[in-house]
């Protein structure tokens, strides 16, 4: 589904990603872990198409297409979804309006008719139960005045409504209490299926207690330094990231 080859990315001229390789197949859940500043969020944002990040080398193929050539909205229409680490507040645009615009834009690109108001509302209300969000938040401006936990739930609600093929969660677990963490996990687990793939970007192993990954990758200094199955996450929890950094440092002559 997603194939990242030798991806190099700079921000303001400073190299952040220095050759990332990653293969994600439909049905898989990948966890990308790593210390602060290793490039995890950069990877998530560059996949979603943020203009601030400059790709200097490498390629990303998503469902057979050159992802890097597509504007962010086209990526979303092709089934990609990024749950933001810091969801932005948009005063004056209601949550439900955004949900409807997004869903209908995606449906339109799939040659599906717009959902009528009744069906749409039924769908949204159904997904709201999943994230345990009060209905009142639907009619508020997007994320405006939301608590940190509400913002993250709102991201998961959008994901649950839009049903992406590839969902990328950028540190969705950070700053959440256990209840909210379980809500996020439930949202992800419901989405999980043979047609979809999920990339969890996280600093902590905690989330992986609730969502079992098929693969764990450790990103250190802009490269994937180590990959393994879920047991790798436990080792990281026990020993921290230091040992991998040492192990992966190329010998100098």
């Amino acid at each position, binding site marked *: 589904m997603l194939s990242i080859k030798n991806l190099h990315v700079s921000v303001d001229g400073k190299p952040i990603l220095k050759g990332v390789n990653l293969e994600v197949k439909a049905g898989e859940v990948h966890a990308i872990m790593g210390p602060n500043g290793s490039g995890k969020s950069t990877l998530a944002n560059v996949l979603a*198409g943020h*203009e601030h990040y400059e790709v200097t080398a490498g390629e990303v193929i998503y469902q057979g297409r050159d992802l890097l050539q597509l504007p962010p909205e086209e990526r979303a229409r092709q089934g990609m979804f990024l749950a933001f680490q810091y969801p*932005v507040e948009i005063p004056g645009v209601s949550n439900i309006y955004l949900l409807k*615009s997004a869903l209908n834009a995606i449906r339109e690109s799939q040659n599906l008719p717009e959902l009528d108001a009744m069906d749409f509302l039924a769908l949204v209300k159904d997904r709201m139960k999943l994230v345990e969000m009060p209905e009142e938040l639907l009619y508020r401006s997007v994320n405006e005045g939301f608590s940190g936990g509400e913002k993250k739930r709102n991201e998961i609600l959008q994901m649950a409504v839009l049903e992406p093929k590839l969902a990328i969660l950028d540190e969705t677990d950070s700053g959440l209490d256990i209840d909210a963490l379980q809500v996020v996990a439930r949202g992800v687990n419901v989405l999980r299926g043979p047609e979809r793939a999920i990339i969890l970007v996280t600093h902590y192993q905690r989330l992986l207690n609730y969502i079992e990954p098929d693969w764990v990758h450790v990103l250190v200094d802009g490269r994937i330094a180590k990959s393994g199955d879920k047991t790798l996450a436990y080792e990281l929890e026990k020993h921290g990231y230091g040992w991998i950094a040492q192990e992966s440092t190329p010998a100098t002559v």
Partner: protein
Amino acid sequence: MNPNTAKETYLDAMGAAEKGLAGAPSWLRELRRSGAARFAEAGFPTTRDEAWKYTDVTPIVQAGFQSVAKGANGVDPARLDGFWFENLPSHRLVFVNGHYSEKLSTPGAWPEGVTVMSLAEALRDQAHRIEPYLGRCVPEKAHGFAALNTALFADGAFIHLGRGARLTWPIHLLYVTTGAGEPLLSQPRNLVVAEEDSQAVLIENYVAIGESVYFTNALTEVVVGPHALIEHYRLQEEGAQAFHIGGLHAHLDRDGRFTAHGIDLGGRLVRNDLRSVLDAEGAECQMNGLYVLGGRQHVDNHTHIDHAKPRGTSREFYKGVLDGRSRAVFHGRVIVRPDAQHTDAQQVNNNLLLSRDAEADTKPQLEIYADDVKCAHGATVGQLDPDALFYLRSRAVDETAARDLLTYAFARDVLSRLRLEPVRSQLERHLAAKLRVAALPQTQEVF
């Protein structure tokens, strides 16, 4: 026409007008004379005047605008249909090129204690009711345009709300200018007197039929009595080549409440002076403003809130969207006098620039001479939030739609403060049309 010639021409007109005032009451002759004297002294403002630094009125002076007689350029009533608000029954008064049109107006029945009529007619038949108020809200050192209006206004609305009188319907004052080729000047003058405990909603609506170069020099005085409540809408949708200078001067008595909504969508060069004096305890003033500009439009809002007595509240909220080579000026002056303890004043002005060539100059000016007060202000000039744009795009909304959506949401924030729903929704449609976006549903509506 050079500035001196223009000034002489208007002074000549004032001299001629004075001859026609032979039968008028002496106070009115004196008022006219004082306007002429002030105009002779001040002349037209120039960019050397601090208050006009960014607003150059040379094109107004050069065009040599002249007023026309009543009855010139007739209007077919059907042409006005689009100007009335849907689902909003109102008392409708129409002014064509500065003159009241009985034929086009449908004022309806007035409740007891309410007098609404043409100011020209009132000055003829009921001058004694006007004498105590007319000209009293305008500062002595008003600029030349205000003086020009005082010296030469022909007509406008006189609204008198007796003690306890309350209007259910708003009064909709429609000022229409008709394009007829000549550089036309219309100078409406309105006087609103709200006695103790009275209430009314007023809509001043400036529009054009046809495209022509004209100049509206309007001035409204509002006297808000004790516990009276006036909600005032100034909807400026003048023609694209129009010049508009507007003054709105309010005086608030004890616990009086005055709300002024000013929406500027039209006009080529626009200057509004909005002044409110909270001259007794517990007075409350709200000012909401929105300007949405494109092309080479220029809109200058000078607001002035004078907290003269204790426990007054003022809330000022102005927002602007600027595209093309447009320019906006906001100057918000708030004075808290030594007497005005426990004043609570807030002022906000936010400007959104959509183009590199647009410019906004914003200047809050708080002068606080009392020590126990709560005053806050904030002014911003910025662009669309790139993070918000990316967020919307990452949710499949295309870039143009995302920009339009954010812009519309920014501007609609002001319209959401308009209490009259039919006015709000019509303006939302006009706003959407101006921004070339489809009108969005209300935040509170499902869709």
